[in-house]
């Protein structure tokens, strides 16, 4: 068999980071497609007279009250998660296990807070999933977003266990989990604006 010249060393690999970036691209089209469908349905809804806002699209039933404080807190919470995730990357690069551990813990905690806020919104809105088009689509899109957030928490937990378990040179997973939280923040901001602000 002919032999090609051997390479001096293995090339640098960023497989997890690149894979996460591709997963982020896929998740962006997932949510982008869902938001586009939502906007299409809202644009196609018939017009109706609203006591507060005049002539509006008959999309979200008037009796539904969105807990806006909780929705706003979700956006703020996700911004905080990004800072914590980046702090974890910063500490991991310096092999500062104490601060990295703290940052991972806070990332997961704020992530859980955001999921909790979503559950709070579902219970406070009192919307039954079988009440109409708005209702099913509301649960579908916010449910998908919540699943992606739970995946983010699991991802952070995996990164934390790997780093704190002694694999301190494998920083890629830590940066990849931070990248995923940046994506979640941007994605939720879009969902928040379309679903909770514009309604």
């Amino acid at each position, binding site marked *: 068999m002919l032999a090609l010249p051997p390479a001096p060393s293995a090339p640098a*690999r960023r497989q*997890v980071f690149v*894979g996460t970036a591709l997963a982020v691209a896929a998740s962006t089209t*997932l949510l982008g*497609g869902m938001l586009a469908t939502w906007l299409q349905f809202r644009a196609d809804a018939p017009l109706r007279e609203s006591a507060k806002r005049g002539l509006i699209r008959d999309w979200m039933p008037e009796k539904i009250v969105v807990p806006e404080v909780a929705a706003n807190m979700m956006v703020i919470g996700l911004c905080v998660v990004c800072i914590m995730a980046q702090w974890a990357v910063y500490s991991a690069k310096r092999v500062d296990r104490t601060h990295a551990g703290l940052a991972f813990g806070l990332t997961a905690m704020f992530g859980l807070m955001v999921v909790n806020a979503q559950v709070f919104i579902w219970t406070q809105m009192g919307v039954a999933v079988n009440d*109409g088009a708005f209702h099913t689509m509301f*649960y579908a899109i916010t*449910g998908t977003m919540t699943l992606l957030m739970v995946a983010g928490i699991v991802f952070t937990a995996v990164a934390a266990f790997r780093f704190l378990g002694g694999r301190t040179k494998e920083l890629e997973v830590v940066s990849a989990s931070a990248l995923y939280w940046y994506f979640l923040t941007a994605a939720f901001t879009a969902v928040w604006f379309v679903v909770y602000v514009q309604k």
Partner: protein
Amino acid sequence: MWITSADHKQVGRLYAGTGLVGLLAGLVLAVLVAFERIDAEGYQLLDTDSATQVLSAARLLLTFGAVAPLLLGLAVAVVPLQLGARALALPRLAAGGYWMWLTGLGLAVASIVANGGPGGGSSDMVDLYLLGTIVMSTGLVMTATSVATSVLTTRAPGMGLLRAPLFAWSSLIGSVTLLLALPVFIGTSIYLYVDHKYARAAFGGNTGVSDWAGWALSQPFTYLLAIPALGMVLDIVPVMGRTKLAQRSAAYVALGIVSIATLATVTQTMVTLPWEGDTFFANAGEKIADLLPWGLLTVVPLLGVLGVLGTSALTLKNGKPRVAAPLVFALHGLLTILLGVAANVLGSIEDAGLRGSIFEAGTYVAITFGSVTVAFGALCFWGPKLWGRRISDKAALPLGLLALLATALGSIPYMIAGFADQPAGALDGFSYSGPQELWNTLTTAGFALMLLTSLGFIALAAKSFISGESAGDDPWDGQTLEWATSSPPPADNFSDLVVVGSATPLSDLKSASNGKDA
């Protein structure tokens, strides 16, 4: 253990093997529906409802149960070898993707059998179908992510993206376009699932499934699945032509521009041509602006496929081609993909009046059968690297000719019948007598011939797998890195990492070695 293995060759074999089973199942159902179309006024084997469901199942199996796993499986198995990598990137993701895809496909098919699927009568089974398609598509996205990451991160030192083999390049493009397009399908299916299960208020219940998610079983989504097939052709042709690929840069561009179809997968752009007699040139600017999206999303991919054909033809002209099964399958597959993509340009012109007609099915058949034919060629070509033995070239060659005939018969008569307004979906409500009967008979014969070809090919592949002639490490006098390792390769593919200095490293090495000997 093979069931838990994350070895890319094993995962690739599983994908390709299951894809062949899916192909047989899909073809059996396609023959059944085509047979019913010969005389739909009196159903022979099916009734009105089950005919629609069998049609859905055939499309699902051919698209997601055959073409997608065959091409993705070959990418999983072969691309790391072409890149000089010791393993696939994120191998457990790829293996997990396979099992998710298989579970989802199984659920979707089982639901159709139990009166579910698009237009199904059982509400729970329609829900199960939607759930199955979500799981199945997620599995494919996972594997596509793994393949794309491999091409981006595991290339041998010195192998820039423009030195990557064309199949690896097309797998990157195909995987990225899949992981951009399939999530839109997943999102739509999530909406459909929640709406169908709880309210049926937004998406039209059972009938809405086809309206909202049917695009994933039609053009131009099928183009995305065919992109790796075009790359396979571009890797097979120079080896069989015993020369280097002509206009290599053009080939990279040609593959890239086919992916433009990604943008059209959801919208399925239609156009009304400004043919208005004397007023043709009035408001020319506006008319050109109207034509631009159609031109970009429908005509440009055709130019890409033509580019692949041109590069292949030029390469064969420059070389000394040997007539072998991989080349015959690859060229026939390429020609039929070209037929399908060209037909879709015509089909997307509103004025042609082909929308909703069986013409679309003819286009679908050409692209799907074309992709499968190329995959057969790829299995003949890379079989030695997958299981260490060769598929008999003598026995496979006639099947290559049969595949061309099958595709021509399976697609062209449907295209002709489309001009007579034969509907695409429902079988009843249309007179099938006269010439229509002939077109539908020919199509049925084409499908049956493709089934026969596939059965013959699978028998040959199975014989080769069990007791075929040992292939040797480089049976085709290859040009790229996969031929530099043993057949089948060891667990970690290559004993040493190698440095690559060109797009055809093995050819260069052979030339240098021959020079020294001389």
